């Protein structure tokens, strides 16, 4: 008696590559791979032919020649005598300078707005709805322009801040004045703010071409250290409370631990603020935040924030109403219910779409082109490309850059996502 489960022991025939589902997969994959390889070969061949026809070569040597142009915002030291490579790094730093604070601020805005959209206050809920709908349905490009232009049109020029002798004599006030006790100036050029400086800096450490500022590093270590010690103190107080029922007074210890070492550090390094002062044309000294930077950042934050708000609202609505009721039954106030019960659970629904919003924000930094913010696209893919005429090399490098950035963000976010997902055992 033959069992039906035994497959017929046929020999392999070539026609099985098409008709037999066991082998068809290999045929299809082979054909796909072949077509793909042909396609890539065709592209490469075309590229080589085109390069030859235009008398161009494909090399990155131009990156080491003198850039010759200036960039307004340089987080990496740069002058026009530096190479195009350095200009590219400046651009990359500028992109990150928008992307990283942008992601953080957009999340904050998004969470607040998402929660407020569900507020019982009718006016606030409506206002937030209007905000979300307006920002989601109008192109980001327009928002960048709409935020940038008033910053430049409604502020005063630096010379309007000037107080001349005649004005003092006539008892006139200047048209504009600085904010916060003459420390911050908001002019048509940008926002000038005080810059922290150290008289006795700790110097910097050169790690493989990247110089690390030891002063800031030390400050970071001290802050983290104080926070850690403070947590130890509170944990101890908790233990005492659990064993004796009486919580020892620790607030003064916390205050001391959190402030004293940092103040000591500031005194030791000679910390002071460099205030912006008005010179012949501009404010000099301090930090200058260009309006193009500020506007791009604000527009990206508000635009992405509107999308995140919808994600957050969806996440909160996805949590069953019973959770809120149970939390009220435990006597938690609405604010704590939100922060301790609802949001942590909603987070699991929120995180995956949030990651893609972070990616969008990072990619959208390239719209800085609209306000002439010199980011990665503005330097490497803009002026450098233009001055050297190396479209192929510059564009490929730029795409690679964005790709790596995107992959980094999504992998970091995915690790976090995995750590907060429900562990089903």
């Amino acid at each position, binding site marked *: 008696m033959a069992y039906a489960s035994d497959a017929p022991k046929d020999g392999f025939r070539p026609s099985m590559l098409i008709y037999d589902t066991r082998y068809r997969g290999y045929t299809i994959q082979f054909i796909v791979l072949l077509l793909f390889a042909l396609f890539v070969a065709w592209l490469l061949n075309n590229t080589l032919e085109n390069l030859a026809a*235009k*008398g*161009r070569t494909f090399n990155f040597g131009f990156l080491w020649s003198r850039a*010759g*142009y*200036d*960039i*307004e915002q340089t987080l990496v030291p740069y002058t*026009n005598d530096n190479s195009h490579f350095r200009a590219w790094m400046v651009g990359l730093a500028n992109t990150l300078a928008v992307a990283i604070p942008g992601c953080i601020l957009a999340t904050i805005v998004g969470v607040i707005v998402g929660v407020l959209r569900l507020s019982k206050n009718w006016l606030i809920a409506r206002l937030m709805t209007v905000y979300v709908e307006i920002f989601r349905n109008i192109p980001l490009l327009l928002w960048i322009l709409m935020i940038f232009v008033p910053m*430049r*049109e409604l502020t*005063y*020029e630096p*010379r309007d801040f000037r107080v001349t002798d005649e004005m003092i004599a006539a008892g006139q006030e200047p048209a504009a004045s600085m904010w916060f006790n003459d420390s911050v100036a908001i*002019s*048509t*050029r940008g926002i000038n703010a005080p810059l922290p400086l150290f008289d006795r800096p700790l110097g910097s450490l050169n790690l493989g071409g990247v110089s690390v500022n030891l002063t800031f590093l030390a400050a970071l270590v001290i802050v983290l250290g104080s926070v850690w010690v403070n947590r130890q103190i509170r944990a101890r107080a908790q233990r005492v409370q659990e064993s004796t029922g009486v919580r020892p007074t620790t607030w003064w210890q916390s205050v001391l631990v959190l402030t004293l070492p940092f103040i000591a550090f500031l005194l030791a390094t000679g910390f002071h603020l460099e205030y912006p002062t008005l*010179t*012949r*044309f*501009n404010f*000099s000294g301090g930090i*200058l935040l*260009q*309006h193009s930077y500020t506007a791009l950042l604000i527009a990206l934050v508000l635009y992405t924030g509107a999308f995140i708000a919808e994600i957050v609202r969806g996440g909160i609505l996805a949590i069953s109403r019973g959770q809120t009721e149970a939390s009220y039954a435990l006597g938690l106030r609405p604010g704590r219910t939100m922060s301790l019960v609802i949001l942590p659970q909603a987070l699991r629904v929120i995180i995956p779409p949030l990651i893609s919003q972070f990616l969008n924000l990072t990619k959208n930094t390239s719209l800085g*082109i*609209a306000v*002439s913010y*010199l980011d990665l696209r*503005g330097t490497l893919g*803009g*002026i450098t*490309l*233009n*001055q050297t*005429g190396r*479209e192929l090399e510059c564009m490929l490098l730029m795409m690679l850059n964005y790709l790596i950035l995107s992959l980094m963000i999504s992998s970091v976010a995915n690790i976090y996502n995995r750590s907060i997902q429900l562990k089903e055992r």
Partner: protein
Amino acid sequence: MKTSVFLGTIAASALLAGAASAQATLEAVKARGELICGSNTGLTGFGAPDANGEWKGFDVSLCRALAAAVLGDATKVQFVPTTGETRFTSLASGEVDVLIRNSTWTFTRDTELAFDFVSVNYYDGQGFMVKKDLGVSSAKELDGATVCIQTGTTTELNLADFFKANNMSYTPVNVADDSEAAAQYLAGACDTYTTDASGLAASRATMADAANHIILPEIISKEPLGPVVRHGDNNWGDIVRWTQYALVMAEELGITAANVEEVAASTTNPEVRRLLGLEGDMGVKIGLDNDFAKRAIMAGGNYGEIFEANIGSSTPIGLARGLNALWTQGGLQYAPPFR
């Protein structure tokens, strides 16, 4: 849902186009029956479409003269707006036949980028505009100033060189296009705006308070602006070059759009006769017919007429001829002899 009808069209048009641009540019233009001219995305006075979508301007007029010379019809031009970044690529890729778009003739562009600058239709130079009440009368006093620059051009390099040479510092504000740069400057986002002097004059002319702005005397660079063609097609380069020179020559000889027919009928001057195709075989030598110069002149007038109509002192832009006067009047516009 919808399926693609384009694909076939794309494939077919790609093949056709491929076949077309393998020929010399002149044949391609004639076969197409239309000249494709790379133009500005909109620069007052030099090239911008009006309310009806009709392109007008100084550079545009040269395109039209060229179309008239090659195709016999000044309206057979398609204008492809190009940005500072895309202009050379669209010329190199054959998307446009000629680029007449305020492009500065430089060594690198002429050699490494493999283009030919065939002539100069406007001699320009980079200048500075400041507000009068800033109290600056020379560019040398701009140490520490904030400067608005248009990116993607030679101006940013000139600017860096100028400040370096004079041992001064500045804060750049890089702006993508001309109208945006002017807006930045007006709002006070920078102390001075630098670009080609013609552009400064055009911007100043349209400001509500033009009297409050002055253009500083220093011209910090040479900006010979002219039509650009691809390297290697010398015949096409000759056609563009001599069309432009025919216009200059016409001004020199006093031939205008209005009197060209009359002059052609009555003249005995051998040079005029050669220019207007009554004598010799000038047009045939460059692959056109002998009337090419006559048609080019009739399209929009001679060089002087084009200048006056688009950017000259009778227009709101009000540029003086300056360097662009004929060599006989102390300028640089000089056409080699037609013989």
